[in-house]
């Protein structure tokens, strides 16, 4: 496995050729009474092996739904997700169970995502039992290794979640996700519930683990400065649709989409000497049950034109590797 990782790192071209995950026209609608809530409405992007793709957007933009649909916790309304070239939605339940070894999820709330009545050994050992990997003493040994890997003491193995702090619980969640040597991990706001000094600990851990184990991440968050720090590429979503997708440097330094620009200028900078003109978006995110016609962002867009209300902007590669959906770039 380590050799694979090295190859990926050394040979940039071959890395570009094998997307580990390909999302094609993914849609997920929920029924709300007689209406449809379009939580995710047409996602198209690739994630390459060993990279981190950041997924950002405001609450209700469908980023968590996208993450959960991509690992088939939800059945999609339409579209495909190819994992290692195969559509995961075509697999039978049995086959899917096998594939779930390679795809794991880290949850946002470390207080709600660990069963309070299970010990750490049971929590981290559960995936090992379910997939019949190891049993008995060997399982215990493996759990202890995992605890060490995420920076916890193996002596904690018989403790219950309430005996840990938030940051430590998130480490337990990470250990559980790593138990089966996954290839792809969806991190659904893994640090939002943690204090700043602890956030940095967890982000450093995630980065180290990625280097060591060659993991691929989809990192969902709303904190843009943290997303920029951890991601290779960033996808910006708004009301279930993709707005902009590019490598993180370009996205943050030369954003094209007005929404990305506004998002970036909304982030308060911890430096009192910096004074800047902020783009303040008026109003709130419209309801995804009844989204605006044409471009979904037009109701809050400072650059909205006539065409924006009638036509949906096309997803276009404006510069190599820099995609944007906005009429300004037609």
């Amino acid at each position, binding site marked *: 496995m380590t050799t694979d990782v090295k190859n990926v790192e050394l040979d940039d071209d071959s890395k570009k050729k094998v997307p580990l995950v390909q999302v094609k026209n993914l849609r997920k609608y929920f029924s709300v009474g007689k209406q449809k809530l379009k939580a995710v409405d047409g996602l198209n992007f690739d994630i390459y092996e060993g990279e981190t793709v950041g997924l950002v957007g*405001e*609450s209700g933009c469908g980023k968590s739904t996208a993450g959960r649909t991509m690992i088939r916790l939800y059945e999609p309304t339409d579209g495909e997700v190819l994992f290692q070239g195969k559509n995961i939605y075509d697999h039978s339940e049995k086959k899917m169970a096998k594939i779930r070894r390679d795809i794991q999820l880290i949850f946002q709330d470390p207080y709600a995502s660990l069963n309070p009545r299970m010990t750490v050994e049971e929590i981290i050992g559960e995936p090992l039992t379910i997939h019949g990997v190891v049993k008995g003493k060997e399982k215990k040994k493996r759990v202890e290794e995992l605890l060490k890997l995420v920076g916890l003491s193996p002596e904690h193995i018989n403790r219950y979640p309430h005996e840990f702090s938030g940051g430590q619980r998130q480490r337990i969640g990470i250990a559980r996700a790593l138990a089966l040597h996954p290839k792809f991990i969806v991190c659904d706001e893994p640090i939002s519930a943690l204090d*700043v*000094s602890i956030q940095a600990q967890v982000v450093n851990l995630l980065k180290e683990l990625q280097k060591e184990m060659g993991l691929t991440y989809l990192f969902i968050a709303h904190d843009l400065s943290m997303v920029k720090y951890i991601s290779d590429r960033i996808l910006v979503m708004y009301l279930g649709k993709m707005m902009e997708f590019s490598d993180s440097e370009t996205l943050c330094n030369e954003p094209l989409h007005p929404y990305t620009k506004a998002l970036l200028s909304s982030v*308060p900078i*911890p430096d009192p000497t910096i004074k800047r003109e902020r783009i*303040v978006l008026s109003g709130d995110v419209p309801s995804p049950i009844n989204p605006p016609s044409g471009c979904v962002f037009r109701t809050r867009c400072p650059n909205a034109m006539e065409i924006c209300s009638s036509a949906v902007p096309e997803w276009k590669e404006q510069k190599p590797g820099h995609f944007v959906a906005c009429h300004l770039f037609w």
Partner: protein
Amino acid sequence: MGKLLEVKNLRIDFKTYGGEVHAVRGVNFEVKQGETIGIVGESGCGKSVTAKAIMKLLASPPARYKEGSITFNGKNLIEASEREMERIRGNEISMIFQDPMTSLNPTSKVGVQIMESVLKHNQISRKKAYNHALETLQLVGIPQPEKRMEQYPHEFSGGMRQRAMIAMALVCQPKLLIADEPTTALDVTIQAQILELMKDIQKQSETAIILITHDLGVVAEICDRVVVMYAGKVVESGTVLEIFQNPEHPYTKGLLKSVPRFDMDKSVPLSPIIGSPPDLFSPPKGCSFYPRCDYAMKICKDHDPEPEDVGNGQITACWLQHSMAKVMNTHTATNVGGGTKR
């Protein structure tokens, strides 16, 4: 500018089944008229308890004001009776809470809730109170205020609810506004709106603001002075420029270093503060930051440092600022720290 509020050596304990929690352990700070101060710190550091103590909103028991004074406009609030407090709350000091959904009354119209405090504190007609509430809603940027007055909180979005909360807090033109994590529950674009609104309020009114937050970016943007709290104590305070540019306390330094900046190199790992905050059931005898501190020395373990003025009104509670420690150069101090920690 005159002194509006002075908190002196405030100590608050909570009685629990597990024993006494020493939530606030000697907090000192002051607020001048019209200024904005930020109280920052991690969860559990006592910042919200301090804020609620100023409003006397802590239920007692379990809370116990053990020591200290809170002087507002020359009056010690700790000794004030409940009736006196009722006259002050919402009128002279008001508060905005973190979660606008749970702090508004869901069964009563927003307009009525805003009018309530006007009617309580002033001898005016309902009509006048209504107009006053309407003006305040306009001031906080709520469109169609006439219609909004008649609506219930569930008909408001998160950002609008927070605006309504701010309107409610400002309607009596208080001298002091305490905002407890006012933007934490909001999205960044909405947070930006609320921050702009708070800046407008600063400009337009004489109201002093205490902003409690864990977001250093928010502090840098709107505060004049910063109070950094850790484990129930103030570890450092000073002007926003001093704190961000010349932090002296290792905890402040650590906090500032642990947030990524936009211009940061990705290959450099973030420098988190190792470990987690101490248990306030039995706080450490010496400096409470000692177990996590990179510069910890022998004295830190057993003796709590006194706050020292390090110039420009910046106050730091750290042994490194002691006149004896300054004689030793920083080189030795770092070495000692490295030795004791690992």
